[in-house]
């Protein structure tokens, strides 16, 4: 696909171009579909059992949109995803992921390839959008508990000189660890908060889907995810 003149990174790191963004979203649709039952079960335990179904519907709609034509930049891909999720998901994940992808798109501007620092900035922007929309903090047992360590790990990796795929992999691994760490927490936001102490003992479905989405981003870039 597009080969830019600014050959920055040494080595054979995958360029995070529009084709990567499209692969990311197609892989996300697939992994969400494969984990639909898992997400539904997690959400049934502490919520309203609709997270897997809603996300599967949303990313299914994203696939149809991408089949209709490929946007021109990574940001345009993410914006298309944001608008589609907002209209089709229905549950809290719609406005939350809609905001996340919209802010991520804005952070990328019209770049045709995303640099390591751009990856870190994109994930931080997504996290900030989710926090602004959902008013949740770290420890509330929400997707913020996956996005925040992901943003921090991406920032650390980018500053240490990692390639863009390595930055994504660091974010994905941190998101996964963050999702696992939601298990003992008592929910303070979202539908699960009505359960009080009974919400402990299950991973938060939004944190788990966040880890899946970031894992897809890393794998679409050829990054090694633990």
């Amino acid at each position, binding site marked *: 696909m597009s080969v830019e003149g600014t050959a920055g990174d040494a080595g054979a790191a995958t360029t995070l171009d529009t084709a990567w963004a499209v692969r990311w979203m197609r892989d996300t649709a697939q992994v969400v579909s494969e984990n639909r039952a898992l997400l539904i079960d997690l959400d049934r335990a502490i919520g309203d059992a609709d997270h897997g179904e809603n996300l599967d519907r949303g990313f299914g709609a994203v696939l149809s949109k991408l089949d209709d034509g490929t946007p021109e930049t990574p940001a345009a891909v993410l914006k298309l995803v944001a608008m589609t999720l907002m209209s089709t998901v*229905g549950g809290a994940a719609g*406005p939350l992921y*809609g905001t996340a992808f919209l802010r991520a798109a804005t952070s990328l501007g019209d770049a045709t390839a995303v640099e390591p620092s751009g990856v870190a900035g994109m994930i931080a922007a997504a996290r900030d959008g989710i926090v602004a*929309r959902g008013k949740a903090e770290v420890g509330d047992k929400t997707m913020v508990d996956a996005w925040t360590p992901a943003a921090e790990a991406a920032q650390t990796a980018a500053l240490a000189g990692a390639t863009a795929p390595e930055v994504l992999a660091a974010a994905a691994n941190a998101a996964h660890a963050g999702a696992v760490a939601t298990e003992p927490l008592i929910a303070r936001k979202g539908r699960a908060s009505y359960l009080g102490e009974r919400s402990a003992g299950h991973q938060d479905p939004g944190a788990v889907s966040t880890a899946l989405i970031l894992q897809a981003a890393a794998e679409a870039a050829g990054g090694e995810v633990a």
Partner: protein
Amino acid sequence: MSVGLVIVSHSRKIAEGVVELAAQMAPDVVLVAAGGADGDGGARIGTSFDRVQAGIEEASGGGDGVVVLTDLGSAVMTAEMVLEFLEPDARSAVRLAQAALVEGAVAAAVQAQGGSSIDEVLRAAEGAVVSIRPEELEPFVSHAAAAPGSEAAGSRGAASSGDGPRAGGSWTLPNEMGLHARPAAALAAGLADLDAEITVNGVDGKSVMLLMSLGLGQGRTVTVEASGPDAQAALDFVGQAVESGFGEPS
């Protein structure tokens, strides 16, 4: 023309039901239900960006602005997103109420029916139920369920708290319809900005819903107790409003 309302709920039935309920008391107000999400024939539980967006557009037809009321979490987030996508001009004429859906919608509809401004309608919605803590709903429940009357208010007067000057008084409702929706809204709106704790027959005088729940008809006694800097002003306002029969026939 009047302020329009959009009712956003996860459930299409809830949104339609709230519109139906509120419309009974506000026949001239544009009330739009924006409930549920696409799927299952439009009856899927969830909230829809597109429906909320279309609802706001429809409700803004009156030209006096729109107040949006929501139920649980993602309904709020969806509504916030829609607001962010509005052009600045359109955005300035929309308010998102932080209110209990049913009580807020009824109070807002009554206020809008009376021709109030968008911010007065918003205040009515948000003042309808201050909190959903059960102990604070107690007067609402007990007065609505039991036969209402001024005796209850009299017996609890000694226990009331509040700083500053106190004032109290009683009047008999002269108008045929009594303290129904419109006068309740007028009283609550008039008392809203006063710096005083005001009870009417034991319930919060600034709450349209609680005033209506008293169910006071013609000939019943309205007993007001107020404390705080504006206590006397509150008393004067209620007295004048009741004595005039709220401008209605007796």
